[in-house]
């Protein structure tokens, strides 16, 4: 009888499957089987394909609305029209998103009310809350702080507040302060002064 467990008899395909097995183990560790993970991914694909289809339809229509000949306004020489490329890309993306929709529909089997419940649960998760905080701090840094105060002040504030917001409880604040000062000094002096790079 052929010993299938013998590593010497493993097929080439098995080498590549090691990574997949590790992913499966990881999924199972999170209390989610591989099939469940596949279904969850297919659900996301289903909705993302609709959004993509609509976006590519918009690009396609915008391409059609662009003038055919920019200078003369005539309809000859359609092949040089600025809208040609968006039409091609929009068309290809529409086909691909339709393919993705069909593929994920076959796995999921349609729209379900539970999907929306899952979506609202995801929004309430600690990951989502932390994500909003990260994005919020980045928005404040880019759109509020930078340009209204010197770069080093804005960067110090961003670094210190972000590190403070996400620090582990046993990490001392004075250590954070030192890290922020050193990093700001390195970026401002190293890039701005030594390397002569313009800073925001």
């Amino acid at each position, binding site marked *: 009888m052929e010993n299938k467990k*013998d*590593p*010497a008899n*493993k097929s*080439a395909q098995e*080498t590549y499957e*090691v*990574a997949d097995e590790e992913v499966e183990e990881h999924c199972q560790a999170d209390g989610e089987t591989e099939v469940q993970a596949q279904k969850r*991914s297919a659900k*996301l*694909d289903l909705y*993302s394909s609709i959004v*993509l289809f609509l*976006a*590519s339809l918009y*690009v396609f229509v*915008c391409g059609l609305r*662009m*003038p055919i000949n*920019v*200078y003369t306004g005539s309809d000859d*020489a*359609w*092949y*040089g029209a*600025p*809208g*040609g*490329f*968006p039409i091609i*890309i*929009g068309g290809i*993306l529409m086909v*691909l998103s339709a*393919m993705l929709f069909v593929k994920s529909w076959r796995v999921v089997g349609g729209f379900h009310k539970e999907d929306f419940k899952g979506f609202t649960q995801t929004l309430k998760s600690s*990951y989502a809350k*932390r*994500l909003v905080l*990260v*994005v919020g701090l*980045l*928005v404040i*840094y*880019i759109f509020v702080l*930078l340009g209204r105060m010197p770069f080093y002040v804005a960067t110090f504030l961003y*670094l210190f507040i*972000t590190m403070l917001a*996400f620090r*582990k409880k046993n*990490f001392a604040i004075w250590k954070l302060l030192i*890290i922020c000062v050193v*990093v700001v000094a390195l*970026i401002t002096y190293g*890039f701005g002064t030594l*390397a*002569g*790079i*313009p*800073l*925001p």
Partner: protein
Amino acid sequence: LSQIILLLQNVVQLFTPENILLFLVCSAAGVVIGCLPGMSASMGIALLTGLTYGYPLQKAFIMLMSIYVGAIYGGSISAILIGIPGTGAASCTVLDGNKMARKGQGRLALNVATVGSFIGTVFGVFCLAGLTPMLQSIALNFTSVEYALLAIFGITICGSLSSAGDPIKGWIAGFLGMMISCIGLDPIYGYPRFTYNIVGLLGGIAMVPAMIGLFGVPNLLHELASSTPPADIANMKKEDKKEGGILWTVKKHMRLILQSGVIGTFVGAVPGVGEDVAAWLSYDTAKKTSKTPEKFNTGHLEGVIAAETANNAAVGGALIPLLSLGVPGSGPAAILLGSFTLHGVICGPMLAERSPTFIVEMSAILLVAALFMRFSGMLVCQVAPKVLSIPSEILMPIIGSLCIVGSYVIYANMFDVKVMFFIGILGFVLDRLHYPAAPVVLGVILGPMCDSNIRRALVASKGSLAPFYTRPIAIICLIAIAWSFLSQTKIWKKCMAALGGQIKKVFKRK
């Protein structure tokens, strides 16, 4: 031979005190970037591209190539010590490297990975210097038709191979990048497309903010939001100094090194395939050809050598189509294409005419970068456990500030920083939905090339599509595009498996 002499002359010229310092610092930075999980070679190059803008060409490329080579190698350090690959290219190294570290052979695994990476890079460099001019002479026959098709091929092949198991998503990502590239004045008539009367958008989406947004911001958001705990570092024992040295490794594993070098270079040279596929293919071949295949995936030295030699040989390989055709061989090479364009170097068949010594200069830089990678790699290995224990809540905000500096620096314009932020949010959404980022970047880079060449070809043929299917090189490109699509279908895979079975049967009978 003259090419090799020229290469060595260039190598000697690179040894100035200033260059040595640059090589040392940047290759060490590359190794650190590579070894930190969540950061990649692509991200390192994207971050540094903006910062090298004001530097002379040679110094800028020394920095970029050192980061590239260092980061591809650096991924192996975290793969061996904590079992998490720092880069995708090192994912194969985990299989044996981490098991060796768990057995207390971590230092030996690191030494061998360093030597393998060094030899792999050197092998790739010689192939780069030798093969690129040959490929360029073929590419001189390319017209607008071939360039347009080549850009589409780049997108489809990159999409096929960079998406884990779902090529449709890879293709969508690539064409989404091309869609982003439509923003701004059109390259032929200067007609504003998708600009919505926003002056900043007239110039289009700049490459560097797009690259930083797609590679930097998603990592920053995910790492901070998920609060990953610091990794568990495997214990390391001091080995016999003879083991793991360059001479010891070459003497004991000469055939394996050569085999992995060849596989790495040629897989790297296939547009869009990249270092990670090279490592897996080399590992698989090493297992098949080994006298002890049962030892693989149990902490076997040959597994580490095969993976690490191939992924670094793929660096040189990935530059072959990049420099000769203008189509990158891997994800980081796609970012490099953007960096080259930013520095005024237009890759493709005309490169040899515009700057005849460029390829040799690049090969020389890569060769010296490999040398310094070996030294800085040995140094970083000593401090790696400390580097790997930097918590993400400290590291990621610093990366955030660097992303902003990197995207601002090119045009000293805050609009680019805002573009980087919005593309970063898009990149994060795509990342969570498992769409690969590399094809998006490639789409942004190749979009204008594809747009202008399709329309130029159609204008030249007065609207006829005949040149697209009558010119010999165009037919090859069309077949390649069709193959990149068809090879992902189940029918094709079944046919190929059946064909393989039949061929095996015929050989067995003989």
